[in-house]
C-alpha cells in the first residue's frame, strides 16, 4: 500500500496504537479477545448511531422535498428527535397478539437485525476499518443479506393477519427477483476488477473508480444496482410489502415497541448497506479522489480522512435514494416484476457480456491510459 501521503486524521493510527499497546501488555489470546469485543461494541454502536442519523436525515430531507420543514421540536432543528423516538420505542409496550405463532413471531425481528448486522460488518468504512474481509467479500454480502427476507416472511406469516401475509408474499417475490439483478450488477464489477475481496476492489480503484474504469457498462451496472438495491430494501417506489395505502403497514403491522423498532432499524440500515456497497464497488469506497501523477492534488485529497470520503459518497447515494423515493408513486406488483424480468435482467445479462468483452479487449480506462 502506498503510504507516502500524510494522513493525519486516519483511524488506522488509533487502531494500530490499540493493537500495539494491548499486544505489549497482554498475552496474545487476551489481546485478541479484547480486540474482538472492542470491534463488536464499535460495530453495534456505529450500527445504531447510523440508523438514528439516517432516520433524522430522511425525515428532514423528505420534509424539504414536500414543502415542509420536518422535525424541529426536540433540540435545535430537531436533531434529538430520533433520540426521543428511540427512547419512546424502548418504553413502548410490546403488544402480545392472540393467535400468533409465538416463537416465530418473536424470532422474526431478529432475523432482520442479524442479517443486516452481518452485512454491516463486511463494509469497509475507512482505510483499515474493516471488520470482515473475506476473499469472497461481494459474494458474502449477497449471501448474508438474503437472510433478512426470511424474517419478513416469518413475520408476515406468524402475525396471523391477512394484510401482513400479503405484504410478506409480495416481499418474498420482490426480494427473490431483485436479488438476481443486484447480484449480476455486482458480478459485472467483479469481472472488471477480477476480485471479490472488497479491500482489493477498493485498492484497484486507487486512480480510477470502477464507474469510470468500466465506463458504459459500469454505469449501466451502477444504475441497475441502485434500482435493485432500492427494491431489495423495500423502499418506495418499491415499497409494496408495506404499501401503506393498501396494506396499512404490511408484514410488520402487528408489531409494536422494540420489535417494530428492529424492523425499522433494519430497514434504514439496509438502505445504508446498499449505498455503502454501491459506493465501495462502483465509487472507490473510502478511497479519495486521486489522479495518477498529480501528487500535490492527491496529497490535498488525502487530508480529508478516508472515512469522510466514505461518508460523503454514501450520503450522496442515500440522498439520491430519498429523492427517488419521494418523487414517484408506488409500482404495482406486476409492474415491479415486469421491470425486473423484462428490463433489468435482460439488460443486465447483455451488460455482463459487454463488460467481459471490454475487459478482454482492453478497453477499460485503466488499460487505455
Amino acid at each position: 500500500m502506498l503510504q507516502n501521503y500524510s494522513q493525519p486524521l486516519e483511524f488506522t493510527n488509533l487502531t494500530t496504537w490499540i493493537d500495539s499497546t494491548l499486544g505489549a501488555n497482554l498475552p496474545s489470546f487476551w489481546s485478541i479477545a479484547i480486540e474482538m469485543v472492542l470491534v463488536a461494541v464499535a460495530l453495534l454502536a456505529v450500527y445504531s448511531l447510523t440508523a438514528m442519523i439516517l432516520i433524522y436525515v430522511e425525515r428532514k430531507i423528505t420534509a424539504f422535498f414536500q414543502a415542509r420543514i420536518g422535525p424541529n421540536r426536540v433540540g435545535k432543528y430537531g436533531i434529538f428527535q430520533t433520540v426521543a423516538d428511540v427512547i419512546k420505542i424502548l418504553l413502548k409496550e410490546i403488544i402480545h397478539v392472540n393467535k400468533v405463532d409465538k416463537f416465530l413471531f418473536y424470532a422474526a425481528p431478529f432475523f432482520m437485525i442479524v442479517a443486516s448486522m452481518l452485512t454491516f460488518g463486511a463494509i469497509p468504512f475507512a482505510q483499515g476499518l474493516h471488520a470482515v474481509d473475506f476473499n469472497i467479500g461481494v459474494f458474502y454480502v449477497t449471501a448474508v443479506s438474503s437472510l433478512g427476507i426470511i424474517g419478513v416472511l416469518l413475520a408476515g406469516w406468524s402475525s396471523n393477519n391477512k394484510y401482513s401475509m400479503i405484504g410478506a408474499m409480495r416481499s418474498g417475490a420482490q426480494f427473490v427477483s431483485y436479488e438476481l439483478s443486484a447480484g449480476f450488477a455486482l458480478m459485472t464489477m467483479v469481472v472488471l476488477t477480477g476480485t471479490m475481496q472488497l479491500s482489493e476492489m477498493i485498492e484497484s480503484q486507487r486512480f480510477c473508480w470502477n464507474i469510470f474504469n468500466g465506463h458504459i457498462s459500469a454505469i449501466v451496472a451502477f444504475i441497475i444496482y441502485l434500482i435493485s438495491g432500492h427494491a431489495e430494501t423495500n423502499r418506495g417506489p418499491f415499497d409494496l410489502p408495506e404499501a401503506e395505502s393498501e396494506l396499512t403497514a404490511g408484514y410488520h403491522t402487528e408489531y409494536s415497541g422494540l420489535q417494530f423498532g428492529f424492523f425499522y432499524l433494519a430497514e434504514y440500515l439496509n438502505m445504508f448497506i446498499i449505498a455503502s456497497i454501491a459506493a465501495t464497488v462502483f465509487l472507490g469506497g473510502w478511497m479519495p479522489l486521486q489522479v495518477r501523477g498529480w501528487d500535490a492534488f492527491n496529497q490535498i485529497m488525502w487530508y480529508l480522512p478516508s472515512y469522510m470520503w466514505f461518508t460523503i459518497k454514501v450520503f450522496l447515494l442515500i440522498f439520491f435514494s430519498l429523492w427517488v423515493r419521494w418523487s414517484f408513486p408506488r409500482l404495482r406488483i406486476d409492474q415491479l416484476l415486469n421491470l425486473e424480468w423484462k428490463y433489468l435482467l435482460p439488460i443486465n445479462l447483455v451488460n455482463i457480456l459487454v463488460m467481459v468483452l471490454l475487459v478482454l479487449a482492453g478497453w477499460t480506462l485503466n488499460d487505455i491510459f
Partner: protein
Amino acid sequence: MEKLTNLIEKKFPNALHVESPKLTFSIDYKELHAFISFLHSYSEHPYDYLVYLIGNDEGEILSVSYLLSCSTNPSLEIVVKTGTSDRENPLLYSITDLYETAHLNERETYAMFGIRFINNPDMRRFLLNDDWVGFPLRKDYNMDPAINPVSIISKDMVDTAPRIMETPEGLKEEIINIFEADDYIINIGPQHPSTHGVMHFRTALDGEIVKKIDVHSGYIHRGIEKLSENLTYPQILHFTDRLDYLSANINRHGLCMCVEKAADIEVPQRAQYIRTIMDELTRMSSHLLAWSAQTNDLGATTAFIYGMREREIILDIFDKTCGGRLIMNQNVIGGVMFDIYADFQKDVKAFIIYMRDKLKEYDRFFSHNVIALGRMVKIGILSKPDAISYAVTGPAGRASGWSCDVRKHQPYALYDKVEFTEVTRSEGDSYARYLNRLDEIEQSLHIIEQLIDNIPEGDYCAKTKAIIKLPVGEYYQNVEAGKGLFGVYIESRGEKTPWRLKLRSPSLSLVSVMPLICKNEKISDFIGIGGSMDYVIPDIDR
C-alpha cells in the same frame, strides 16, 4: 312530451297523471315494473337514468317515488310514484334489473322504511345494522334510545343476504351467501388509510386479484334526513356542509336554491355572483384534494402535500370570506351570509395565476410519470352504459363519455351566463377521471375569471321572513357538486319544517359502482380506483 303522455295513457290506463311542476305519474305497484321498463326502453328518448329513488311515509301509505331522466338530455324528467298501504309487510317491485343504481337505494329504503323489494338480488339493509329495531324514517318510529342501545361488543360479519324472488310458483324468500366458502376475504375498512373515511369493503381475493367486493356503509350514519324533519329550514342548512364536506358550499347552495324556489324568493344578483365564484372555488378545492388523495393512494406522498398546499390558499380565501375553512356556512336562504371582503378579488386573481402555474407542475410531476400511467391507464374501466345505469355523475361519469354536467344541462345561478367547456373523455379509466379533474380545475379558473371583475353592487342577501314556511308540495333541485350530481328533495306540508327531506348524494353511486369496475383488478389498483372515484363517506352515510 305530449306524445309520450298520450302513449302512456293508452298503454297504462291505470297510470294516474298527477298535476305537479314535473310530469308525474302515480301507478299501482303491480304495474310499476312494466311501466318503468316501458319508459326505460322508450324509443325516442329512453329514460335510462334514475336520478333518485325516494321512500316516503305519507301517513297511511308507504310510497316510493322515482325520478327518471334521459341520459342524453337530463332536462327531460318524469316522476313515477307508487306505494303500498300494507305497513306490516310492505312489498314493492324492484327495478334493479333496469337501473343498477336502484340496488343500494332500495336497500336504503328498506332500512329506513321497511319496504322490501321483490327481485332485488340482495335485500340486506343498507346504512343500518341487520338487528336495528324499527324503521327510522317512518313517522311512527320510536326514538327511545333504550330500544337500540349503543353496543360496544364486536359482532361477526354475516355474509348472507335475504331476498325475495318472484318465481312461477309465487314469491320465494331465500337466503343467499355473498361469498363462496373458500374465498380469501380481507376487510378493507372500516379503519383503513385508503377508504377516504369510515367505509368498509369486504373483499374476496384470489392472490392479488379482487374477485368480489361487498360494500358495507353506515358507520357514520347520522340520520340527517330524520333530524331535518324536526328542524326549520335555516337550521337544516348547517347539515349540508357536513355531507360531502369537500363540496360544502355547493351542497348548501343546492338546499338554499330548493327552498328559494319553493318560497319564491328572489336572490340578488350580487349574491348569485358570490355563490357562483365560491362554488367554483369549492369545486377546485374538492378536485385538488381528490388529486392529492389519488396520488397518495398510488403511493406518491409528496404529490399529496403539493395538492394540499394549493388547497390551503383556497381555504384561506374561504376563511377570510365566511369565517370557515371546511364547514363554510356561507349560503343562506336568500343569498349569502357574508359579503366578500375587501381584497377578495385581488386574492382570487392571484390564486388563478398561481394555480395555472401549479397545474403545469402537476402535469410535469405526475400526469406523464411512467409508473403513474401504468397504475391508471386502462385500469378500472367504467363503460358509458354502466355509468348511466349506476348513475355515476360528476368527473367520473364524464370520464366515461357521459355528458352529465348539471351546470350545462340545467343551469342554475350564473352558469348560463358564463362560457365554459364540459370536460368529457371516452376512455372511462382511472386516468381519464384523473385528467378530468385537472381539466375541470382549469375550467373553474376560467369561469371565475369571467365573473371576478364584474361582481355587481347591491344587496348580498334578500330579506326573508323570520320563519320560512314552504307551500304544500314537492320540490327538487339539482346542483353539480365536486363529486357529481347533488340533489335536494323537499316535501312540504305547509309547516316550517319539511315533511320529508332527501339528499341525493353523488358518492353513493360512485361507491356502488366499485364492485363492478374493481372486479379482476389487482388489490393495489382497487385502492387506486377508489382514489380516482373520489367518494366521500359522510355523503353516503348522511
